[in-house]
């Protein structure tokens, strides 16, 4: 990883009528980095991707990819990037092989020339090469889309929510593929609504309601979390939440799957105090243990 800047975003704003989709976005993504844009649905992830991939224009601000301005040099950018949109957007009525050949040809190259780039992924779907794209399973479609985005050896790869709606095993596989693509020197900008995927990125930016609410490496963001955090487990989650939330010194208390994360300020209650409060409220058999803050805790804390 060198220190060249691959993607630079300065003060980008974008509105759709009254909705302010992006407000003053500033980002710097280094060359060769795997950068994650993390935020819930409707946060503005796709809007930012569309601006960076030259599909739509920002209202104000500047952005560049590999030193090329997204407005002035849009034609050059299109040659240097690969883009995989959030929905499957290949030709459903063409076969796997035809789709791949088509995208290779429109970028002025051929599948053979860049076979090394896609070999690893393509080998997994090559046995279906004569099948129409519409007849592939979700995971296969995603692999094909990734192949098509990579077939012209892009310098920067944009992946808009590649793992949304994909099963857990395929997700893990997909991230392993990304790690290998990154190893070949491609800068990857990926967006995802899943906080647990943040740890797999080199650096991340958290986005909410069109604003970046934090950026840095996942460790940095976690270490910046200002509170002690405990995980409370018990049978009646709702009562635990209700009892702990109004306590003095409890900053934040929300449920995470089968546990409840309780953030406590420096001078707030400790482990034992929390347990005794729960006991006093008649909620027995709970366990409370200190944990490290996750990205999701940070996200909720920042929002």
């Amino acid at each position, binding site marked *: 990883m060198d220190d060249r800047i691959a993607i630079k975003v300065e003060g980008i704003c974008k509105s759709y009528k009254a909705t302010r989709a992006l407000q003053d976005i500033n980002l710097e993504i280094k060359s060769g980095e795997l950068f994650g844009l993390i935020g819930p649905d409707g946060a503005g992830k796709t809007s930012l991707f569309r601006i960076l*991939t*030259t599909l739509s224009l920002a209202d104000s601000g500047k952005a560049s990819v590999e030193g090329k301005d997204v407005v002035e040099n849009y034609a050059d950018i*299109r040659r240097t990037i690969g883009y995989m949109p959030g929905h*499957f*957007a*290949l*030709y459903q009525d063409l076969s796997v092989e035809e789709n791949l050949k*088509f995208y290779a*040809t429109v*970028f002025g190259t051929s599948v053979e020339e860049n076979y090394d780039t896609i070999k690893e992924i393509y080998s997994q779907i090559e046995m279906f090469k004569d099948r129409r794209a519409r007849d592939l399973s979700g995971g296969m479609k995603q692999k094909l889309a990734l192949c098509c985005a990579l077939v012209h050896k892009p310098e920067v790869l944009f992946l808009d929510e590649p793992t949304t709606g994909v099963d857990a095993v395929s997700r893990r596989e997909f991230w392993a593929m990304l790690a290998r693509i990154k190893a070949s020197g491609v800068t990857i900008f990926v967006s995802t609504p899943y906080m647990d995927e943040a740890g797999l990125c080199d650096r991340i930016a958290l986005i909410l309601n069109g604003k970046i609410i934090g950026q840095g490496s996942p460790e940095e963001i976690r270490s910046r979390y200002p509170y002690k955090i405990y995980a409370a487990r018990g049978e009646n989650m709702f009562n635990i939440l209700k009892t702990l939330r109004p306590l003095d010194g409890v900053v934040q208390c929300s449920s995470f799957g089968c546990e409840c994360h309780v953030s406590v300020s420096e001078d707030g209650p400790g482990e034992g105090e929390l347990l005794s409060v729960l006991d006093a409220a008649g909620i027995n058999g709970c366990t409370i243990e200190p944990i490290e803050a996750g990205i999701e805790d940070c996200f909720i804390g920042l929002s």
Partner: protein
Amino acid sequence: MIAMWKYLLKKEFKQYLRDPGMPRMTLMFPFLIILVFPFAANMEVRNIKLAMVDTDHSEQSGLLMEKCASSGYFEIVDVTASPEKAQEMMDRGKIDAILTINAGFARMLEGSVPAEDAIPLGIKVNTVNGTRGSIGSQYLNACISSYIMSKKGGSIPGSAQIEVRETYLFNRFQDYKLFMIPALIVIAITMMCGFLPALNIVSEKEKGTIEQMNVTPVNKFAFIVCKMIPYVAVAFFMVFSCLLLAKIVFGYGCAGSLLDISIFTLAHIIVMASFGLLVSNYSENAQQAMFIIWFFSMVFMLISGIFTPVDSMPGWAKLVSYANPLTYYADAMRGIVLKGSSLADTWVDLVCLLGIGGLTTTWAVLSYHKTN
């Protein structure tokens, strides 16, 4: 660059041929147009159902009846002495016309002048269907006058003084099928080139593939031209297979040059395709595009002179027809196919067609850039 164009074209043709319905439709359309529609879109009036009310009961009235029956236009449904019964049949829609022969008809033919208030002959025609009614009454009039003329050997008061004989120069037997075939080709080309390219582009929009294309170096011009080429090919296939079928099945040749037909067809394809593109630029989905194009095609067809002559339309409709590409294409196609008109005769049509095409193309290109 050339490889890219080639592959773009290949992709469009593959997609066209892989569509479950399109190739079959393309083959079926010419057959439908030539073998089915000319019979259905027929405006010839035959088999006018006629009832006779005969109160004269003379030899003359019998001969007049025979004359009408043998003309081929009428089907004598009933002969009765009661006007009320005939009227009831007309009210029930069983007959189109009543010919009443009153007492005194034979005597009038023999030379006696009928009394002021006595009318020896009456015609009553049902004009709920206007064309059928007016043409029916003309035929009936013609039958009667020719009968009276043959009997009296001269003119009679109240009927036509001058006999008009019509000779049709380019369609001698007034065969409506021959008249309609060029028009049906026009309709087919309009439908195909208006709808299909537009729906194709909108469907790429709907599926998001157009976005994937937009991030490639393929420019929009190449993308759209390659999209149009298969439809141009299909349109020409349709025009020529229609003409060939018309020749084989009905023996109608094309009087003009096929090159002229090709020039006009190409111009019309440009107009309709750019119009379709224009609509697709403003449509979010196939339904919207479909409805807008359908609406305009409908207006284009009705106010174009294909079914009813432009000259008989009111002033505002005439103005609309001047802005309608179909007016010019249909006029030229009829001219070329029926009369053998050359470009020297039809250049006004071509200039107007190209003018409209230039306008729609410019608008389509401008709006295409704006929406991105």
